[in-house]
């Protein structure tokens, strides 16, 4: 069952940018693409735990600021020849407000 948590107004996240959510246990990066899709994933690159929230967003991927790994925002998978994966969380936008489901990935 989904468990949606309200996070932030969509307009508070810059287009092609991100915000960081701190929970009690971890940091989560919430990204907004140029066409207003919203994605959320654990704020750790599978390579050396770089903060993905600080990377450059392009299309539906983000480039890690530490060593330029490219991570797919939808799946959390590293793109190109690199291999690795970061936890992703379901998101939805309703009436300009971003919600995130923390339970789903925690269980997965």
């Amino acid at each position, binding site marked *: 069952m989904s468990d949606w948590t309200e996070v932030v107004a969509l307009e508070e996240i810059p287009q092609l940018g991100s915000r960081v959510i701190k929970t009690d246990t971890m940091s989560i990066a919430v990204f907004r693409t140029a066409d207003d899709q919203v994605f959320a994933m654990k704020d750790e690159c599978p390579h050396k735990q*770089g903060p993905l929230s600080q990377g*450059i967003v392009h299309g539906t991927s983000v480039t890690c*600021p530490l060593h330029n790994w490219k991570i797919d925002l939808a799946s959390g998978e590293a793109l190109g020849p690199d291999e690795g994966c970061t936890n992703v969380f379901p998101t939805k936008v309703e009436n300009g407000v971003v919600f995130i489901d923390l339970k789903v990935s925690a269980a997965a």
Partner: protein
Amino acid sequence: MKQKLVLIGNGMAGVRALEELFKHNTTDDSGSDLYDITVIGSEPHPNYNRIMLSPVLAGEQTIDDIILNSLEWYEENNITLITGDAATEISRVKKSVVTESGKEFPYDRLLIATGSNPFIIPVPGADKEGVLGFRDIHDVDVMVQAAKDYKKAVVIGGGLLGLEAANGLMKQGMDVTVVHLLDSLMEHQLDKPASALLKASLEERGMKFLMEASTAEILGDERVNAVKFADGSEVDADLVVMAVGIRPNIELAQKAGIHCERGIVVNDTMQTFDPVIYSVGECVQHRGECYGLVAPLFEQAKVAANHLAQVGSTRYIGSMTSTKLKVTGIDLFSAGEFNEEEGDEVLQMQDVASGVYKKLVLRDNVIKGAVMFGDTMDGTWYFSLMRDASNIADFRKTILFGQHDLGDAGHGDDTRVMSLPDDAEICGCNGVTKGDIVQAISKNGLFTLEEVRAHTKASSSCGSCTGLVESILASTVGEGYEAAPSKKPICGCTDHSHDDVIDAIKDHKLKSIPAVYEFLEWKTPDGCAACRPAVNYYLLARWPEEYKDDLQSRFINERAHGNIQKDGTYSVVPRMFGGLVKPDELRAIADVCDKFNVPEMKVTGGQRIDMFGIKKEDLPAMWKDLSDAGFVSGHAYGKAMRTVKTCAGKTWCRFGTQNSTGLGVKLEELTWGSYMQHKFKLAVSGCPRNCAEATIKDFGVVCVDSGYELHIGGNGGIKVRVTDLLCKVDTEEEVLEYCAAFTQKYREEAHYLERTAPWVERVGLTYIKECILDDEKERKALAERFKISQKIAQVDPWKARAEGEAAHEFTPLKIAG
């Protein structure tokens, strides 16, 4: 309605064209693929790397190692693959292709990539068992088997392919004699001295040669047992490999009535005289030229793919090629017109004892050709200078000694990269060995530096090993490697180069990133982490007063105005003009460190104080305190003007001349806040003892009794490069004006992420002198433009953020969970 695309020839050129095609978004409006693709190949294998057959023959690699596209690849891309069934007829009326087994494949577009056939000399006995060419996996299998059963091999042809075949057979344990019609080996690639060195080196390994020998007949019953020559002499042979050349395979096209000369004649978009039929590869004749090397084929494949994908208007305009011999342990490089004509100048270096020979042919100070033996480290560099037709006048005295910034960080002077052991570390940043790189190249079928970077990470951090990696790449893939393409795209998002973008922004008054992407037909909607910061910078540099900096197109350091550290914290470096600091300021810094629990401080190489381990959310508050104490951002995090380093100066130093420290402060006041293509450092020394190390800075001033020496293009980082002397001036006002003009010239023209050192080497000191010294009007205009851009740039980003700008950047959201 899906169109049918049929490819005849399952080889490197044709399949590369398909790969290029898939790079485009080849779907129609309904979202289905543009083409239904069928590939017809006569060999029973998927596409493999034909140029790696020599290492396979030599036992250094296996067939599996050289497969470029696995069967799964064809499946994943919904390609119907027909192997072991040659196409026998093209019906242009029915628009279909018929194969040997009688299958028929209709097409809307046809791509012919039938490659070439080895030329078999038409002498009596050439059809005997044990006589073959060296062209495909089957030939290699036959040779490897023959090596087990027989002893003596004769290779006819002392060219590239013949010598590689001979070397492979020797490695397989055969006694090999190379027969050559002329008096020197590889006459298409080498001049006589290099050819002689090569021959001696191969003889040392046990290869035998019969020079100026014209083959008359192959003797034997069913199987060959000897080769007879025109002069009547004979040599025993159990195996004869003919490697005297290749002929474009045009039979099929010719039968179909497609215009052919030596090869299938194509136009600049790789179309034959029948416009729905394209052709690429060795079977093609373009502007009178047929190519037998792989780099041009890839260029052709790209053009054909663009055309098939109905995008862009790229044209193929011919290729310049270079050659490397893939015989392990022999370093040989050749490119262009290596035999001088009247009026050409020759630079030559020969060291017989170390077996090194280098020769460059120059015409009006432009490289026309190069031959190298023994030390080919700089081959790729010479080749790119040749392709770009660079004027080498500024460094012709040293050019034979190689490139300044190549392979000297931890690599010593070991230039013979192929003689390094496999465990030699090439990339010191990422710990990548030569063996890792060679393996990645052959296993994954890599051809470009970018691909090697992506797969191995070698040369992807500081870049100091780029030359070595290129050299390994060139040696491993041989002629397949294309050194520094004449027009290098910024990244995979576009075919346009940095210069194209810079020019378009200027000439067409493009004033936003979307405008640039639209005008230059970018392939991705919002670029990538490589091109967007570059385009953002170019716009900012060109339209300082109109363009609004796009924060989402900046690397995190420039967005957060601090240097991101590996644990995600930031470091903070306040500016201290000219390196001068007052007690109150130091006290303020100490207070800030206490207040924010700064775990470590250190003094930087640029005479500033660095505070480490700052949490991002603390940055604005910390900046407020620093700002209140009078500090502005030190830009130690940015592609920007960093610091002006100074020495003790005349006030205290007994050797000092001029007011060097004061000049340092003035220079920093002039230049701080300016964004650049890369970091930019200055220094002022008070005397020629040069304690501020001004001669390894981007712009350095050395004060002397009679005035000021101005130095440019130095680099103390990855590759040390000593500055070039720009000129000497008499007054401080002139120093400031020349500095502003030089800085602006760099800001307007260099490529993003190109420091002044490689920029000065690329455009030449002469060019910079022409603009800044000889043309007073231009100098003053440049300095004026710099001042205009500085008016906007010199707003302290720390103060602005302390006052609340871009607050979202620094404020995390907290939720329970």
